[in-house]
């Protein structure tokens, strides 16, 4: 495999020869392996290697971006990026000032690619055996993937940063079928390259398979408004979709109307509500030391005591909104320019226990585990992997999975209880502007939402 460090040295030198308001370059080399099972059989196993890079240039507020696999003729790539930026630029370039950084960041763990494929397969075989011990099961899917990536970031400010990261993701699902009715339950996990995070899951895997069978005889909820209690996993997806995306400043910075709505100090929830995004907490899937513009990671309060107090920035959005950069510019790979993204996003824990949260609910829905989620900024949806009725303060019968929806301007205000049991979920991947799945983590304690709209028959 080509070593990108030589190309990095050439690029660092070459950048100096071009004139633009700002130029940055990124080189990346990665290795990936994956194993998938469908049904009883291993379906595919493969390995991939990639080398590539990009150059981004800013001229009078306009951006040019060039990505490539071939590392030959790097000066021509810079020239093209500058030429494109020149064609676009008609205003003034604005980027929040940052100090140049020269640093090398090693991975916390060995690359998961050093673990033999046989050992990975052994673990997945065990999980698949457990799934298939469950009677009435129709099929199952197991998708395991790991990767190791080394990146070099260079900028015309004089930054030169080398970072490495590993990532592991595992998604399992069990499918039950009867008389043309098909039900499925999934489990998603991930880690920062730590293989032990996906070991020892035999019991949850067994429960997952049994739950898929149980859903065949479960009723579907009647559509309408309910008091809903979310478990930490689903509440994490909720905070990501319901509020996280709206706090990404690239949606806001050039939109005067949205800037008025998203004015700092606006009340979104009760004084008990605190929402944080931070890449500076080590060991999580959304963590890093520097973002893809070479800005150090920070901890950003988005909501503090129910009020909007901060948002996530790239250098450009920070400058245009006269706020401090937060180190949230991320690119999923060298094929894309960095955009404003979340990292590890969570609701801070409060005092209430789970029993207290459900104690006074006469009829409600307890929704657990995630299936998916999406947002249009104002309105959002998130789907639960598991759901139960709550009756007279107790978790009652299982329901078919539910889809929930909300409106950011009312739903956060309807959170009236926040638990004491924060848990971070590492199984998610976020998509935005064609860049997905970006490793992120989400978390929350149990939360209770009044008047939440649930889809159903």
């Amino acid at each position, binding site marked *: 495999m080509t070593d990108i460090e030589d190309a990095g040295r050439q690029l660092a030198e070459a950048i100096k020869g071009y004139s633009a308001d700002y130029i940055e370059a990124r080189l990346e080399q990665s290795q990936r392996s994956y*194993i998938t099972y*469908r*049904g009883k*059989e*291993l379906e*595919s*196993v*493969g*390995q*991939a*290697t*990639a*080398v590539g890079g990009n150059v981004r240039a800013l001229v009078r507020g*306009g*951006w040019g971006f*060039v*990505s490539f*696999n071939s590392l030959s003729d790097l000066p021509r790539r810079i020239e*093209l990026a500058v030429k494109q*930026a020149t*064609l*676009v630029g*008609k205003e003034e370039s604005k980027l929040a000032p940052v100090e140049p950084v020269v640093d090398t960041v090693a991975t916390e763990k060995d690359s998961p690619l050093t673990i033999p*494929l*046989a050992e990975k*397969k052994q673990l997945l075989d065990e999980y698949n055996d457990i799934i298939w011990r469950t009677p009435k099961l*129709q099929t199952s899917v197991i998708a395991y993937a790991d990767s190791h990536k080394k990146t070099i970031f260079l900028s015309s400010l004089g930054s030169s940063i080398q970072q490495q990261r590993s990532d592991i993701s595992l998604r399992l699902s069990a*499918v039950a*079928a009867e008389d*043309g*009715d*098909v039900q*499925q339950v999934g489990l998603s996990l991930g880690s920062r390259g730590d293989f032990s995070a996906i070991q020892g899951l035999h019991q949850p895997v067994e429960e997952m398979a049994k739950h898929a069978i149980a859903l065949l005889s479960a009723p579907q909820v009647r*559509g309408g*408004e309910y008091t809903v209690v979310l478990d930490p996993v689903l509440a994490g997806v909720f905070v990501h979709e319901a509020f996280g995306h709206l706090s990404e400043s690239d949606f806001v910075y*050039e*939109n005067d*109307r949205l800037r008025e*709505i998203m004015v700092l100090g606006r009340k979104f929830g009760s004084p008990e509500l605190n929402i944080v995004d931070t890449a500076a907490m080590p060991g999580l899937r959304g963590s890093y030391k520097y973002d893809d513009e070479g800005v150090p990671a920070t901890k950003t309060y988005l909501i503090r005591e129910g009020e909007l107090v901060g948002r996530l920035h790239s250098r450009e959005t920070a400058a245009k909104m006269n706020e401090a950069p937060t180190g949230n510019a991320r690119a999923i790979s060298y*094929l894309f*320019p960095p955009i404003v993204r979340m990292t590890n996003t969570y609701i801070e824990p409060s005092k209430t226990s789970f029993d207290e949260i459900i104690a006074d609910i006469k009829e409600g829905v307890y929704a657990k585990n995630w299936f*998916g*989620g*999406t947002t*249009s*900024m*104002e*309105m*959002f*949806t998130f*789907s639960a992997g598991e759901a139960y009725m709550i009756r007279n303060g107790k978790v009652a019968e299982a329901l078919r*999975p539910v*889809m929930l*929806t909300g*409106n950011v301007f009312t739903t956060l205000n309807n959170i009236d209880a926040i638990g004491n049991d924060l848990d971070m979920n590492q199984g998610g991947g976020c998509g935005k502007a064609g860049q997905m799945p970006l490793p992120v983590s989400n978390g929350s304690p149990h939360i209770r939402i009044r*008047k939440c*709209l649930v*889809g*159903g*028959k």
Partner: protein
Amino acid sequence: MENVLAQAKKVAEEAEVFMVSSEETPVQFEANRLKHIQSKQSTSMALRIIKQGRIGYATTTEVGDVQNLVNNAVETAQFGMRAKFELPSPTTYPQIDIFDPAVESTPVEKMVELGAELIAIVTGHTPDILCEAMVSKDTISLRILNSRGGQASYKKSIFSLGIMGSLIRDTDMLFVGESQSSCHPLTHPREVTEVVLQQLELAKNQASVLTRELPVILTPRGVASALIPSLMMAFNGKTVLEGASPIGGKLGKQVFDPKLWLWDDPTIAYRPHSRPCDDEGIPSQRTSLIEQGVVASFLYDLQTAALAKTRSTGNSGRGGGLPTPSPSAFTIAPGQTPFDEMVSDIKEGLVIEQLMGAEQGNILGGDFSGNVLLGYKVESGKIVGRVKDTMVSGNVYQVLKEVTAIGSEAEWVGGFLQTPPIYCPRLSVASKGLR
């Protein structure tokens, strides 16, 4: 490529090399202004081998690094699935026109003009709207070689125009948008903005609904968001083979409304999802999936077809991994009823353009449930305004068992679907308010 194949043949019984490269130039506008010009060059090579009867697979972007690619494939072959198929021998391919050199030669300046025009038309209609626009040209070259002498290659051009507008009034947000693509350059921005202007007109007023069952017209975009994810999964030969498709055992049976016809077609000239062969070098064909409501066939690649004891339908696709059955482009045949006639038939109901999140439930079982991101209320045969904070739920198999009407005007949605509107007698609607 020949070198990779030669090296791989030394260590494996069979081998196949697949290479794809592309040159893409997207021009992007944000907040009504030109923001970004990009140029993306990418190349990747995939090697699939059969060694001791098992499949090995590796990919790389470093086309010169032959040994590493072969080694990686060999390593995975120890654990790979048993190969049940034979790679295709030399064959002839249908002539399908998918390359227009005018795409590649369209100057970036012209693309900038087109984007500016898209925005000027939409802001001319609604001055306080903020638009993102994208004009993009892409040239893709693909080549496949295998150890049985099979080889295929083609070059494709894609040009696309898209615009998304957001209109914010107090805390109310409206999102409208449309995009179109072709293998020819697209030079008429009005064909794209026409849809957006109509959305803006229809969404001018707000309307509300109560929680109940209502008749619903899904527009072509509504069909794409509510029904298509489930159907694509159900007609996938792999889902059928596993017994997880609700229609898997119903070949030749009446499952859908007799008005419904559906096929997969990669042979239409100058469409972005067309191609002379699939990703394993099997010639493209049109495959009938639903005929008069009867399940007609499923989609297969080589391995899945072999396991199911049938033949490949030329539907192999690669999403970065091993070939797997993938639809090319779905077409639902137009029916008899004009859209306006459907609307005038409804006393109280909805027209749905975008159902957000509908693909995130149990699509395998055919369930869909989503937030009406863009949809309108119909009262006494007229569209009266936009509905929001509303969920619509149903099951594809129940919905398509009996439809009231299928529209007479079909449209392309996102390049992968050509469909008319579909009028459903009742879907369950949940809204803020009474239950």
